């Protein structure tokens, strides 16, 4: 495989998968810029390993794992500089918004995700946005299935009071 072929194939791969990975990054980071940085860092690593057989076999799976790994590693690096969000503050903030305004309700989804720890958010994104099974999520994150279930349950318990009022109001 020549360098040009490799770059062309990689470009096609990014076009085919970029939106999906970027959206996952957006849900994980809650910020467009961080999502772009995360997506770019992910694709750079994928390209650096592009000729490896396991990347060629399933590049999307490789990219997804890389994205999660980069995200969690980076979050741990920055953990000391970021403060956890108090869910009470979030609830107060969300109630201030006009719940009939769809854009405001959309903001609340990302705001609510920000209340979760990085691994919990990753579990939520994989399980409920990507529709990955518990087994697949455990493999992607390198944790046990029990840990996936525990984190998912805890995340749902934390998200429910933040998101359900809007759903009830809209229905």
């Amino acid at each position: 495989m020549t360098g040009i072929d490799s770059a062309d194939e990689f470009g096609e791969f990014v076009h085919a998968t970029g939106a999906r990975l970027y959206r996952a990054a957006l849900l994980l980071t809650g910020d467009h810029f961080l999502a772009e940085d995360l997506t770019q860092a992910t694709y750079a690593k994928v390209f650096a390993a592009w000729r490896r057989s396991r990347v060629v076999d399933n590049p999307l799976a490789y990219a997804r794992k890389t994205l999660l790994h980069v995200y969690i590693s980076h979050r741990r690096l920055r953990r000391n500089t970021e403060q956890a969000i108090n869910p009470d503050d979030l609830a107060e903030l969300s109630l201030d918004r006009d719940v009939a305004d769809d854009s405001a309700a959309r903001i609340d989804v990302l705001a609510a995700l920000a209340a979760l720890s990085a691994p919990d958010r990753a579990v939520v994104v994989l399980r409920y946005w990507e529709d990955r099974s518990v087994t697949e999520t455990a493999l992607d994150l390198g944790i046990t299935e029990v840990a996936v279930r525990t984190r998912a349950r805890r995340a749902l318990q934390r998200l429910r009071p933040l998101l359900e009022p809007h759903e009830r109001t809209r229905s």
Partner: protein
Amino acid sequence: MSNDDDEFSGVLGIALRERVSDSYPDFDHLIASSLRQGTRLRKRRRAGFALAIAASVAGIGVAGVLLLPTAQRADKVPDYASSPRPTDTSSCALIDDTRSPDSDAGYGTESPQEAAAPEVIDLPHSSPELLRSDPAGLACRNGPVGDIPVRLDLPGWTCEPPIRRVEGPSHWMLTCTDSDRRVTITVRDAAERETWIAAADRHSAFASEVHGEFFATIVIANPYQVPNLDFDLAAIDAGLIWK
């Protein structure tokens, strides 16, 4: 999982999909920058591999000399310096995108399959206790921060030691706080300013003018912590002192 949880998880899945359904990256920029960054990673990895081989060969050589009888060793072992050289331990931090996830902090480059699971990665940089106890020592483990071209001089604001990014679209990151606000200032290539502005989320971000080869982006560290989105990022930009 209870029926309530099942029902709510369905609602959550729909909400998540709706939230990001109209979000797309800038594909051309993403491909070009990923190719550029990925190529640099490849070269760096090859260089590291060559260095590791050279170090191994040197180690074998030294071990061979040390195993010689004392009389023979005296003729062959070179003199060593009598005292160590002073090391520059100025405040610095560096994220090396080329290191493997299980070797240290920062972005990993090894395959996820090779890397340790995220739950068990040992990341010394990310330990709040370690950072509090010896930030300079940890920061310098990976190299100097270099000559960061900007600092924030604004009453009431303090900044943590800058983080140097070896690879990626940005070069330095500064986290600065006052009593109740927190921003991330990122120094980026001037050439990327237009692209960055085109994708900007106006609620929580600001781009400085170009200063030499760089410009800075100022982002509220977490926009959802700030109910008032009229956060005056321009005032922070005015406090940036460029070299």
